[in-house]
């Protein structure tokens, strides 16, 4: 049953990349579209392989709300597809596609999957894991996109990358479930500020005003996010008395 539902979700996520590939071909040519399709589909398949492993290890069932959470990974996959296409135009179709994927993943999906799960009584440990990891993965891919075609400096990728490095270090001592159990209240607004910076940097309609705000905010938001990531790691160690 787990495999059947996973296959259905896989099919839905892969199908979602087809119209985007057709539009990429129309706007940026067959080579860029082919690279986009390969990049986005490989990313979806890799994500779903990991999800399949996590679901079977927990013997958990994937529901409709989980599918919505996983579509955030599909949004990240579309951004990776734009990376793979080689098109670096923020104001062109690829730029709009990447930005729309980011807005869907970070706002629509991130804000609505939790309340929907609570309302439908469909909350689960697997859903919480997919939510947290989907969020971190989308953040890393978005940061990389914002550096590649959004004009942000390379150090903006450090905080999203550090999250994975510190997670691996923490998991050598404590189980995954305990690492983010006591996340402080300031972590969410800090994360929102970071995503807003990336959203502004990638906005296809962004002109001089947006570029100025992005230029001023970057040296403040990026170091604070890194500091926050380190503090959350230290907190997880302290809570357990390590």
């Amino acid at each position, binding site marked *: 049953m787990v495999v059947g539902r996973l296959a259905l979700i896989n099919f839905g996520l892969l199908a979602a990349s087809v119209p985007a590939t057709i539009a990429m071909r129309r706007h940026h040519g067959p080579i860029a579209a082919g690279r986009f399709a390969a990049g986005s589909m490989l990313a979806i398949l890799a994500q779903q392989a990991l999800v399949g492993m996590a679901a079977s290890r927990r013997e958990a069932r994937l529901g409709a709300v989980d599918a919505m959470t996983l579509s955030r990974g599909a949004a990240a996959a579309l951004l990776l597809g734009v990376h793979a296409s080689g098109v670096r135009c923020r104001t062109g179709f690829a730029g709009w596609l990447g930005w729309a994927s980011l807005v869907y993943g970070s706002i629509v999906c991130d804000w609505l999957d939790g309340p929907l799960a609570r309302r439908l009584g469909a909350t689960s440990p697997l859903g919480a894991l997919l939510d947290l990891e989907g969020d971190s993965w989308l953040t890393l891919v978005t940061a990389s996109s914002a550096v590649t075609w959004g004009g942000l400096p390379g150090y903006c990728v450090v905080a999203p990358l550090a999250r994975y490095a510190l997670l691996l270090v923490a998991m050598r001592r404590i189980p995954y479930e305990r690492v983010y159990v006591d996340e402080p209240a300031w972590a969410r607004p800090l994360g929102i500020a970071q995503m807003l910076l990336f959203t502004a940097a990638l906005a296809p309609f*962004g002109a001089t005003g947006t570029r100025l705000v992005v230029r001023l905010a970057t040296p403040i938001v990026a170091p604070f996010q890194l500091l926050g990531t380190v503090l959350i790691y230290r907190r997880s160690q302290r809570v357990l008395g390590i």
Partner: protein
Amino acid sequence: MKSHDPHSHRAELIGWAAFLVFVAAVFGIRRALDRR
């Protein structure tokens, strides 16, 4: 001397206004879903 394209300023304003309306709508749906 640099001159700024008034169309790009207008497009930028319209873009951010539409974005804010969209964010407010999603936030409203979220609040409605979480209301007990």
